């Protein structure tokens, strides 16, 4: 079991999301940074979809009431286990009673606390993800509070002391590396691109859009010189996916994210490609983003380095865990 000792608003239990219920109006939810959760689960030998604690506000502290291996991914921050420093993206082992504390990130925005076997909350409509708008999933459909307890059912700790290179150091963007003030994202033009004035089309790609405080898991509101339509339109409601860039009448775009509505009605100018959504998840309020136009083929190709990064990690972890087992004389196939 895990006991939450200290938390503030909007930290929730999430997995890779709740596909399959969009036709009932139920959004996918799930972690904002699916890459960080997958890294955590691979490092721990978990199922790819095991649930974690997603941190959006800090500091956060918990107590492990049973021994477990764990890893914190997504951010670079001061992380301490009973006061001793733990590196992010590295597997560590906690004994029963030890306390984990995660401070505000130096890099990134959303931290992921993954444990062996995942966080055991009930599966609702096929997922453990918290659906905050609907008020279900996760822990009673709400953010975590101090005093909450979460079940963990993973096997006792195996090996630790190994980790992953963070994706930011491995994966280049279209414009090289991001810095903490400006994030480069690739986007494809979307359905209503042609409804915008040529100036607006030009401005979409040339503006450094700033992420406003009116941003959350539903979407990021961006600010910059407004994008104008050739003429006002009233669109019929249509399906929405994460990454879609909508432009409400005021002209400042919104990028829909993990908690997006399933259906929307504002003109769509572009879609941030799937391969870059994790970068957006780690962008803080106030960060500027620059969109770069890409084709369908470029968007598809952009997933290759992401998948290669995960595949390499999977292979490395399998080798390391197997050799560690041999060293300690544990037969492969033994659960412990």
């Amino acid at each position: 079991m895990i006991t939450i000792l200290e938390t503030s608003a909007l930290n929730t239990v999430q997995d890779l999301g709740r596909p399959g219920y969009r036709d009932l109006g139920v959004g996918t939810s799930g972690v904002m940074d699916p890459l960080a959760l997958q890294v955590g689960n691979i490092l721990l030998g978990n199922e790819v979809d095991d649930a974690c604690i997603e941190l959006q506000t800090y500091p956060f502290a918990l107590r492990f009431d049973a021994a477990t291996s764990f890893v914190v991914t997504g951010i670079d921050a001061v992380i301490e286990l009973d006061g001793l420093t733990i590196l992010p993206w590295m597997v560590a082992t906690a004994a029963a009673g030890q306390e984990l504390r995660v401070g505000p990130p130096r890099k990134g925005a959303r931290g992921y606390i993954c444990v062996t076997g995942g966080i055991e909350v009930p599966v609702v409509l096929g997922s453990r993800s918290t659906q905050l708008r609907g008020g279900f999933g996760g822990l009673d459909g709400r953010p975590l509070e101090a005093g909450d307890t979460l079940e963990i059912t993973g096997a006792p700790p195996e090996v630790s002391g190994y980790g992953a290179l963070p994706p930011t150091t491995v994966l280049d963007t279209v414009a090289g590396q991001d810095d903490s003030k400006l994030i480069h994202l690739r986007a494809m033009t979307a359905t209503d691109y042609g409804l915008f004035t040529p100036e607006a089309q030009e401005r979409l790609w040339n503006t450094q859009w700033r992420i406003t405080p009116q941003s959350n898991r539903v979407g990021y509101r961006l600010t910059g010189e407004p994008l104008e339509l050739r003429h006002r339109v009233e669109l019929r409601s249509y399906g929405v996916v994460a990454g879609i860039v909508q432009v409400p009448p005021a002209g400042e775009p919104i990028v829909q994210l993990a908690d997006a509505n399933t259906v929307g009605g504002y003109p769509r100018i572009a879609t941030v490609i799937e391969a870059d959504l994790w970068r957006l998840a780690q962008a803080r309020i106030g960060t500027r983003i620059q969109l770069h136009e890409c084709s369908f083929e470029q968007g598809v190709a952009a997933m290759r380095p992401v998948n290669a990064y995960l595949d390499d990690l999977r292979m490395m972890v399998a080798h390391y865990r197997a050799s560690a087992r041999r060293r300690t004389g544990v037969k492969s196939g033994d659960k412990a």
Partner: protein
Amino acid sequence: MKNDVERDTGAAPAISMIGTRAMLFEAPGDFTMAHQRRIWALMDAARARPDVRELIPGVTNLMLVFSAPPASPEAVAEWLRHAWDTLPERHIEGRLFEIGVRYGGALGEDLAAVCAHAGLPPQEVISIHHGSEYTVCAIGSAPGFGYLHGLDPRIATPRKTVPSLNMQAGTVIIGGMQAGISALTGPNGWNSIGYTELRLFDPDRQPPALFAVGDRIRFYPESIEL
């Protein structure tokens, strides 16, 4: 290939990619039940495709979410165009819901804006609203929210420029040519004209959504506060 597989304003459907794993099919022409029934038929046919992971029917449109980016979006678009041209309409014998509405008041505060837009007095807007029978065209936006067809064009009112920040679940609303009942409490850009106690979604209920595509709805005034 361009991201827009096809974007035509004529009589042909418009088909476009939304990122690498979603494709939007938009029917040409007006928002009619005939068109919506053809969208339902298309949805049924698309469900059999092995590359389709999720389908999101909208209002005279359909979004296909693929499990992986399609090798040839053009080929999928061609399949959709052919299916659209050849499939018969899908008729659904839905259930009838009769729903009492408390028109006006604090929870229907945009009634005045609808009246101003329509150029009609409130009593008439209300009687036009409950005089029609509505059909649930699609479920979406929020868990269990039904998009209703059947709004009288005389009271169609564009979505608000500044959305309400905290509209109550159960608010009876109008957004353009679409009618509905809000399913969750939260921000909403549609015009509120009244309120009902109905609960549209419960994850522990089977099925969780109260309305299904094809269901019919009649409103009646429980009270009117002007």
